[in-house]
C-alpha cells in the first residue's frame, strides 16, 4: 500500500504541485483551517474541519462567464472559455466529496454547464477518512459516513495512531495522482485508525415525507425567528449552488459574472416591480430546508445536504439545519401518536 508519514504531507503537496497540479488542502492560518491553494510553507491540518467547503474550487464565488467589448456604440459579445486548471483537492472531508455528486446532477440535468464541467473534469478529489468530528457533524443522518468515499477519486486514511496516512486510489484520476506523487509516497504497511463515530440525529426519509405535507406548518415561523438573512450558511455549504448573473462594465468592456447567491436573502426572489413571492424570512428558511430535503430529492433523487455542519458553525444566530430536521422528526413522531 501507498503510505506517507503524517509530517510529510507538505512533501506530497510539493510533489503534486511539481507535477503540474494546483493543490488544494486544509491549511491552518492562525486559528482557522480553510481549504485553500497550497503554497510552500503552508501548514496542512487534517484534524480541524475546514471553515469553507471544497465546492469553492469547482463553483467559485465569482467567475466570468461572458464578456463584451464596447467600442463606441458597437458591442461585441465574446465567448468565454472556462478557467479549469488541473487540480487535486487533498484531504477533502467525505461530506465535501459526496456533495460533488449533487453538484454534478444539478449542473447536468438538461443543460450541461460547461464552466462547472470543465473544472470537474480537471479536478481529482482525494478525501480524508474522518478521525475527528464535532458536535455540529451529522453526516450519518443524511446517508453519509466518516469513512464514506462517494465522490472521491482517492482516499487518505490516517494510520498508526496519526503517525502516517495510507493513500488508496479509487479511480483512474486517483491513480494518476498517486503516480504523480512519486517518491513522496512509499510502499509500506500501516494500520488504518478507526473512523470517528458520528451519532444519528434524525431520520432523513421521514423529514422528506413530512415536508411534502407541511408547507404551511407554523413550525417555519418558529424555527426562522432568529435568522438574520446574512447568507453565511449558503456560502459555506458544499451543495448550495444558486447564483446570480451580474454585469460589470468599464468604458472598454463589460463582463458578465456568475456570483454565489442564496434563497436566504430577501432580494433573491424580489421582482423589479416590487412584488416578492417569498415575502418573509420564514418563507425563505422554508425554501432552504425544502430545497435540500424535498425538491432535490424529488427532481434529482439526492438530498441537498451532506451533514457537514458548516452552516451551523458559522451562523451568527446559532441556527442549525440539523436542529430544524430533528424538530421536524419529533413533530412527525408526535403527530403519529
Amino acid at each position, binding site marked *: 500500500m501507498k503510505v506517507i508519514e503524517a509530517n510529510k504531507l507538505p512533501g506530497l503537496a510539493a510533489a503534486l504541485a511539481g507535477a503540474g497540479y494546483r493543490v488544494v488542502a486544509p491549511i491552518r492560518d492562525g486559528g482557522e483551517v480553510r481549504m485553500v491553494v497550497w503554497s510552500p510553507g503552508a501548514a496542512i491540518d487534517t484534524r480541524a474541519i475546514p471553515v469553507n467547503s471544497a465546492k469553492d474550487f469547482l463553483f467559485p464565488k465569482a467567475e466570468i462567464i461572458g464578456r463584451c467589448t464596447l467600442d463606441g456604440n458597437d*458591442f461585441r459579445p*465574446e465567448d*468565454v472559455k472556462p478557467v479549469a486548471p488541473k487540480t487535486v483537492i487533498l484531504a477533502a472531508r467525505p461530506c465535501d466529496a459526496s456533495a460533488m455528486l449533487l453538484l454534478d446532477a444539478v449542473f447536468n440535468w438538461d443543460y450541461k454547464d460547461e464552466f462547472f464541467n470543465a473544472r470537474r*473534469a480537471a479536478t481529482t478529489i482525494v478525501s480524508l477518512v474522518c478521525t475527528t468530528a464535532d458536535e455540529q457533524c451529522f453526516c450519518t443522518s443524511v446517508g453519509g459516513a466518516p469513512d464514506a468515499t462517494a465522490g472521491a477519486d482517492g482516499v487518505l486514511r490516517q494510520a498508526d495512531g496519526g503517525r502516517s496516512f495510507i493513500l488508496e486510489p479509487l479511480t483512474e484520476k486517483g491513480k494518476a495522482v498517486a503516480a504523480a506523487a512519486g517518491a513522496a509516497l512509499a510502499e509500506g504497511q500501516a494500520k488504518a485508525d478507526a473512523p470517528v463515530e458520528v451519532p444519528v440525529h434524525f431520520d432523513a426519509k421521514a423529514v422528506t415525507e413530512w415536508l411534502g405535507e407541511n408547507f404551511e406548518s407554523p413550525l417555519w415561523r418558529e424555527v426562522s425567528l432568529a435568522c438574520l438573512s446574512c447568507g453565511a450558511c449558503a456560502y459555506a455549504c458544499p451543495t448550495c*449552488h444558486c447564483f*446570480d*448573473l451580474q454585469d460589470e462594465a468599464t468604458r472598454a468592456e463589460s463582463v458578465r459574472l456568475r456570483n454565489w447567491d442564496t434563497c436566504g436573502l430577501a432580494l433573491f426572489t424580489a*421582482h423589479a*416591480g416590487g412584488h416578492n413571492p417569498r415575502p418573509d424570512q420564514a418563507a425563505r428558511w422554508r425554501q432552504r430546508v425544502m430545497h435540500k430535503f424535498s*425538491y432535490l430529492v424529488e427532481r434529482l433523487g439526492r438530498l441537498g445536504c451532506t451533514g457537514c455542519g458548516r452552516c451551523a458553525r458559522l451562523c451568527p444566530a446559532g441556527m442549525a439545519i440539523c436542529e430544524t430536521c430533528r424538530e421536524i422528526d419529533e413533530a412527525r413522531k408526535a403527530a403519529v401518536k
Partner: protein
Amino acid sequence: MTQIDVDLVKGAAAPSPYVPRMARILDATQMTETERFFRLQMEDGPLEYEPGQFVSVTVFGLGEAPISICSSPTQGEVFELTVRSVGLVTNALKQFKKGDRLGVRGPFGNHFDYDVMKGQDIIFVAGGLGLAPTRSLIRYVLDKRKDYGKVTILVGAREPKWLLFRDEVQEWAKRGDADVRVTVDRADASWKGNVGVITKLFGKIEIDPAKTWAAIVGPPVMFKFTVLEALAEGIPEHRIICSLERNMKCGVGKCGHCQIRGVYVCRDGPVFTYEQVKRLREGI
C-alpha cells in the same frame, strides 16, 4: 470516459446559453408612460420561438431582464417585446430606439400548447401587462383562425391610458371572427366602453365548458378572481392556462431564482395549467 467527460465534450460543441446574440431594433414606440414596444431582428439569423416563451434582454454594461415575447412566430422573422420600465435594465431600455442594438439570450421556457387547443373554443383574459404574453397566443390563433372554434378576447386595464395595443385590439374586434371586449377599472371623460373589473365581462359572454380553454394572464389579484369565474363556468382546471412571472436569471433551470417548490419557472414554465399552479402555493 466518465459521464462528466462525455458531457464536457458535448458542452464544448454547443453554443453557450449564457452568451447573448445581437438583435437590432427595427421599431421602438412608447405605448404608455411605462410600457415600451420593440420590434427586433436577430443579426445572425431568425429567433426560433414559440408563443409563450421569453428572452433575456441585455443592455451591455448594465445587465439583463427577462421579457415575454409578445409576437407570434406566424408573424415572420421579426419578434416583438413589450417592456415595462420598473428596474435598472428596463428603465435604460426607455432610451433605446430604432437602429440600436441589444443582446438577447433565449428563447427560454415551455410554451402555450396551441395544438391541444385545436378545434376547441378559447377565451383569453388579459389584465394589464398580461396582454403582452397573451398576445403571442392570440396572434397565433388569429393567424390560424380556421383551426380553432369560438375565440373570445377579454382585455382589462386600470385606466384607459394604461391600455396596451389599443389599435390592434380594435382591429381584432373588426375581424368579425372573434368576440373582443375591453374594460377599464376606472374610466375617464373620453371612455365610452365597459367600466369595472374584468370578471364582470363573464356575464356578457357565452361559454361552452365542454370544449373551452381559458388563457388567463394578469396581476395576481386578477388571476385569482378570474380563475374562480372560469371554474364557476365549468371550465376544468387542466384547461385553464396561465403564464407566471418570476425573477428569472439564468433561463436554464440552475440559478434558483425562479424556483417555486420543485419547479423552475424559467425551464418548466412559464406556462402552467391551473391544475399545476394551485399545487405550487407560492406560485401566484
